[in-house]
Structure formats: C-alpha cells, structure tokens
C-alpha cells in the first residue's frame, strides 16, 4: 500500500505548496469528471511547467502510485475520474499559446488551453483550429487530444487526430518524448496516432502541436425544418448522396428544439418534428453551388421552411441554439445522462425510433441532438436522480441503447470515449485478440499499469495472455455493478 502522506510531502517539496492540493474539498472536487461516476483522489497536482509534470510523474512512479491526467474535466465517460487513490495531474494552469507559425500552418500550445481560446486567437490571422466540441468554451486542448474530440465541424474537417501534428508526452516514468513532427512525416510507428484518443492511459500530454486550417472565405448557415423526422433524416443522406459534404450537418428533435428555444430565443421552429442545421463553407461560388444541392435535397423531402442566416450575428444565434443544447435541457430536469454512439447514416431513422421506444418503455424523457452527417447520436435522458429508482432506469435504458447501436453496425462511442462508463461494453465490438492487442499498446507505454488504470479496457484484457473476463451478460446491472471498487454513481 503506497504511503499517501509521503507522496504528498514529496510532491509539495518538489512542486511547492501552491501546486499541490490535498484538503478534503479539493479531493472531492477532483473526484469526478462530467460523467456520473465518482471516485477518489489522494492528492491533486496543478503543474505550471513540463518539468513539474515530469517531477510529479517520477514521484508517483517512485511510490508506485496510479496517475490520472485531467484537463477541464468535461469528459462524459469517466476517463478523468480517479480511482484507487490516484494522483490527479491537472493541466489547467498550463494554458498558454506557445507559438503560432502560420507559414508552417501550425501552433504549439499548452494542454490546459481552452479550445475556443485557440480559435479566437487565430481568427484575426485568418486561420482556425477545426475541431469544435460543444464543450469548446471550457474544454482543454489536452483533454480534446486525449478523447480525440469531435464536434459539429468534424464532418468536413475530420476529428482531433487529423489536426494534431505532434504531442509532447511525459511517459509514466517521467521521460519526456515528442511524438509526431512539425514536418508532415515522422520516423517510427505512429505513436502520436495512438496517444490521441488514449484517454490519459499512456502518459500525460504536456504540449500539443496543432495543424492550422485556413478560415474559408464564405460560410452559409441554414436552418431547415421538417414535419416528419424521417424526412429530416432522409435529407441528410440525400445531401451526402449529391456529393456535398457540408462543414456541419446537425439534427435536433422537437424535444430539444423546444428546450433550446425557451433558453436562447433563436427563433427555432418549435412546432417542427425535427430541424436540420446545415453549414456550408468554402469559396463563395462553391457555397452557392452546395446550397442549391442542399435545397434540392430538402425540397425533395418535404422541407417546411428554409431559413438562411443573413449575417454573422444570425449565424452565431443559430449555432448558439445548437451548442447550448445541454445547458437548455437543465430546464427539463435537474440531471441528465448524455449518450454518444455512432451508426451508419442510413439507419438513423430506425435507430431514432428505437431510442424513443426505449425511453418510453423505461418511462424516461429523451431528447436528441446529434451530428447527423457522421451518424453520431447523442440521445439525452433527463431525470431527477433523487427520485428512487430513476437512476437505475436510466442505466438500464442506456445499456439497451448502446447494444442497439452496436447491433446496427455502429460503434460504442463517436467522440466521448470509453472511460469507465463503456469499458465493459468493449467485448460487444471486439474479440479477445483485438482487446489483447489493445492491451499490448497500453503496456508498451505503461508496463507497470499505473496510467489511469481500469479505464477503456475491460478487466481481464491482457497483453500476451488474452485472459478476458466474461463479458457483462446482463446488461442492466452491468453499468452499475461492473464499476471498479472505489467508484460509485
């Protein structure tokens, strides 16, 4: 059993008292991320330099302590929830833009920098950082890297991985390595590519070299409303079939539209069964051509009205409706459980019907806002966890939802990650050898298994032996019962 007091003392000696928190309130604050799962930390470290991250990692290694890296804590899958009295390394204080080199189409940033702050700083130069998760006002680039974050604009531009040229990573033993390169190719296996999306299980990302994207000269944002959900979903497929890849293609159902409209007053049509937010960008002439195709697809599918944002102000308002969806639903009930799974685009309608059916059966309120172009659903259950039995119903419904999406040829997560919440569903998608290989990737970086243990892979997935525990068969209980000891919902 590691001596927690001596770990705290060593960290305080090395990093200074300002950088180390161990009081009960702080430990409680950092005991969870934005998921439902709560764990426990033994000490929280707030480094301000790469060297301090290395010091903290060496001390943790010396004491055999598990380490959980954390950015803003907006993750929804429990990847930043500490377990086993872990040392939590929070990168929030490292939030500088180190350098911007538009001539090389790159910028170096610290991991704690907020996503939106980077794009705001780049905008006057005519460049942007393309990934734009809905949490972008408060989520950090380091966290985005660790979850391989998406966002509405990833339909045309690709997810975080396509925009990360290199990462500096502090390995579990404290060694600092640069993976990837400012140049377009790098020597060796693409370790950068596996660190992106690794949910803090391979090391601590201490610096990020991001790819800059030129801001397109023209943008058009359109809001389309439909009297039938099926028509809305069919429009999504038809737009793609016409060879148009919109910058964003977002669908919202009536429940979420009503919540959002009451919240931001963007003029969303509350009587529509579903709305589609379409953003086109590129050269002015190209945007015009794409808009003709989008209108054609929408009219062929009985669109109601097509509202085109007249100026930047109106565009911002339409997007505010989309991006504040999760704030808006707080009006429905005090708690929510937000899902994230991906299905083939062509099956959106049937999956959506399935989502409503599951919610009905478990007597839950569900609203839907999602990246329709990517087939990435975000069903959102609203509930009050203080009402006895409610949380259990939410978890049971969630379980059915995940299975439905995977059975439809989809994936467990499109952008939120696996963390604790979905690790026991991994055998739904992967066999023993697949999970064994994934365990090998992890072990190659972290032979002692101290980096964010028990996340992503189910218990029993091991490199070499391929001993995998029986997959959670009875679902219902799985979500709650399979949680590691020391965590609770």
């Amino acid at each position: 059993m590691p001596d927690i007091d001596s770990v705290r003392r060593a960290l305080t000696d090395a990093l200074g008292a300002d950088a180390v928190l161990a009081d009960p309130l702080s430990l409680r604050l950092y005991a969870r991320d934005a998921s439902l799962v709560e764990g426990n930390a033994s000490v929280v470290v707030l480094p301000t330099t790469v060297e301090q991250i290395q010091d903290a990692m060496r001390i943790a290694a010396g004491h055999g302590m598990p380490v959980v890296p954390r950015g803003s804590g907006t993750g929804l899958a429990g990847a930043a929830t500490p377990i086993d009295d872990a040392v939590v390394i929070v990168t929030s204080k490292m939030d500088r833009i180190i350098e911007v080199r538009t001539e090389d189409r790159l910028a170096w940033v610290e991991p704690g920098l907020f996503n939106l702050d980077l794009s705001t700083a780049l905008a006057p130069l005519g460049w942007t950082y393309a990934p734009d998760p809905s949490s972008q006002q408060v989520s950090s680039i380091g966290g985005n890297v660790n979850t391989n974050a998406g966002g509405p604009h990833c339909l045309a531009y690709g997810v975080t991985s396509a925009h990360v040229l290199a990462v500096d990573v502090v390995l579990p033993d404290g060694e600092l390595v640069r993976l990837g390169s400012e140049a377009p190719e790098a020597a060796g296996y693409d370790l950068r590519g596996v660190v992106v999306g690794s949910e803090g299980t391979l090391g601590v990302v201490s610096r990020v070299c991001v790819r800059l994207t030129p801001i397109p000269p023209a943008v058009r944002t359109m809001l389309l409303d439909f009297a039938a959900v099926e028509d809305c979903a069919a429009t999504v497929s038809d737009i793609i079939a016409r060879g148009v890849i919109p910058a964003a293609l977002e669908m919202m159902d009536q429940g979420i539209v009503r919540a959002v409209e009451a919240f931001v007053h963007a003029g969303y049509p509350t009587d529509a069964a579903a709305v589609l937010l379409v953003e086109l960008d590129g050269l002015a002439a190209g945007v015009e051509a794409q808009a003709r195709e989008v209108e054609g697809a929408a009219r062929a599918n009985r669109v109601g009205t097509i509202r085109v944002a007249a100026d930047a102000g109106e565009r911002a308002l339409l997007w505010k409706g989309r991006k504040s969806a999760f704030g808006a639903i707080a009006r429905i009930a005090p708690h929510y459980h937000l899902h994230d799974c991906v299905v083939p685009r062509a099956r959106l309608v049937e999956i959506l019907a399935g989502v409503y059916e599951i919610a009905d059966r478990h007597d839950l309120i569900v609203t839907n806002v999602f990246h329709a172009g990517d087939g990435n659903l975000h069903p959102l259950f609203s509930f009050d966890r203080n009402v006895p039995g409610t949380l259990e119903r939410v978890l049971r419904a969630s379980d059915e939802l995940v299975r439905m999406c995977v059975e439809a040829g989809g994936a467990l997560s499109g952008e939120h990650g696996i963390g604790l919440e979905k690790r026991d569903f991994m055998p739904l998608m992967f066999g023993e050898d697949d999970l064994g290989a994934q365990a090998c990737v992890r072990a190659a970086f972290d032979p002692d298994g101290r980096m964010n243990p028990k996340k992503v892979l189910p218990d029993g997935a091991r490199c070499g032996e391929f001993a995998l525990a029986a997959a959670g068969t009875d679902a219902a209980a799985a979500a709650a019962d399979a949680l590691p000891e020391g965590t609770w919902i």
Partner: protein
Amino acid sequence: MDLIHPHTKADVAEALREASEAGRRVLPVGGRRHMDRGNPTEVDAELWTTMLDRVTAYDPAEMLAVVEGGMRIGDLAAMLSEHNQEWPVDAPSDATVGGVIAAGVSSPRRLKVGLMRDTVAELELATGDGRLVRSGARTVKNVTGYDVHRLATGSLGTLGVIVQVALKTRPLPAATATLVTSSGGIAMAEALLAEVPLPAAVVAEPDRVTLRLEGWPDEIDEQSAAAYAVAELTSVPSFEVAWPDTQNVVEATVPPSRLRDLVGTAHAWTALAGVGLAWLGAADEAELARIRETASALGGIAPVVRGSGGLGDTSLPAPEVQRRLKAAFDPAGIMAPGRFWGGI
C-alpha cells in the same frame, strides 16, 4: 526464396503462425510498388497478398468501402468511380490497398483531401505470430478503444500483414483544373499558395509549378482567376506528379516554410508547397548524406523511396515503446526484420 500466396485472411494468419514457429522470416508483398522503402531486409519467404482482393462491403451512401488488403488500387478506383467517389491516395493502379497503407503514402493533393492515415476507419492485421487483430469501426467517426490501425499504417510490413480495411471515401470533385506555369521555383509556388484560395496541390519544380484545383465549377473559375493574377499559366489535361528522373529519390519532409532551404542544395527536385514534402534526386551517397543532414537540421526526415539508401539513422522517439510494440505483434521477429526505422 519461398513464396506464400494465401487465399484468405485466415490462411495468412495460419502461414504467419507457422513461420513464427519455424523462425522463417517473411516479407509481405502487394503490388511491388513500395519495395525500395525501408532498410534492406533479408527474408526467407515473400507473402503475396494479391489473392486477397475481395470487396467485403461498399455502401456509397455511407462513404465507406471495406476491401481486402491485396485489392489493386486501380480496381478499387474503378469500383468507387462508378458511384462518383474516390479513395484519395493517387497511388499507381497496380499497387495494393494494403501496400499503400503499410508504406504510409498520402496523396499529393493532401491540402484538399487530407492524409491517407485519416481515411483508414477500420483495419484487420494478421500479426507476426498469426493472430487476426481488428481495430476501429465501420463508421465515419469512432473513438472506441486504442487505434491499433494507426500503428500498422506506415509500418512497412514489420508488425504483420494488412488483410482487410474499411476506407473512408469521398465524392469525386464536380470539376477540376490543372494549370502549369512557365517558370518554376519555391517562391513562385508560395506566391500561388498565398493568392489562390484552398488549392488541392501546388507542386513546385525547378522549371515549373503545377496548380491543381478541385471543386465546384464556379469555384474553379474563381480560383483560376486568382492564379492568373499571379502568373502566366497553361491548362493541361491531367494532374501527374513526377519524381525527379534519377536513379535514387529521397522523400524528405520538413516544416512547410523550410522547403526552400531543403531544395536549395539539390540538383533535381519536386516539392509540395504548403505541405513541406519534396522528392529529391540523390546522385550518390555523398549527396544523400547531404540531403539527410539538411532535412535533419530543418527538423525533418529523408527516407529513400526509389533506389538504395534506406531510411537513414534518424533517432527514434520513445525507442523502448517502439520495440515493445514490435515484440508484442511480432514476438519471433519474423516480419521484414530490420526494414523499419531504428533497425526494427
């Protein structure tokens, strides 16, 4: 030299399992288009993937094609173009899908179409010790588990054989144009890059610059007008990127603004402006050494892609992690030994 020519992915796994047990060294071979990449390797057998050429699934509406690793690029392109789509890599038509992925080759049009590595949605690898390992998913977007396929991409066959992949396709552009200047150089290319919005490629050579435009017809007009304001250009019918006509060609990559310094000392070169990649002719070992020294000083690498010379002795980041990965996938060390960076 023995030949292994399997019919199915299970056969591939079986053959590799046996080879591992026997300590028989294997080089995976597709269309023989990327054979000069990597360091020289001595093997006992070649494993030909070319009979693994089936289409598992192709749904144009999902923009995903699931094909076996030995499928020829030309066959894939023909199938996709029937639905006005492409897998944007611009590899020779007799190269194989698995070969292109293992070689880690991206399109010269990458300013527009992105990197090849980001188009591999799912990949199944027959590992050196004969397991079939799948990662990723057949969806546009996916963050489920570790991206083992990222390691296979660019691995030069040293972890296993790529037996099946799900590829993200994209719509073929409605219109294209290829415009060529009458004078060359990096400065001319950078001037075009600065003035022409969102080009697909700006290819610089000593005596000309080729501008590739792809998009909607009106867009091409707008871009062309911007280009004509910078230079005199002639339209040509097709877009081809030619490497220097030399026996040895190095593919050097540096941060984009350092291209000028990279090609400065070379006698023959073709460069992708805005990307930071140049193919340089290396007449002899001395010139190869000079190119490598320059690329390294500029923060890049310079592997040989045609002729001899291998990858060079660039130091590997996290070498222990790289070696552990190799050992995990190919414990007997039979897959193209020594071909990879760092002698892996």
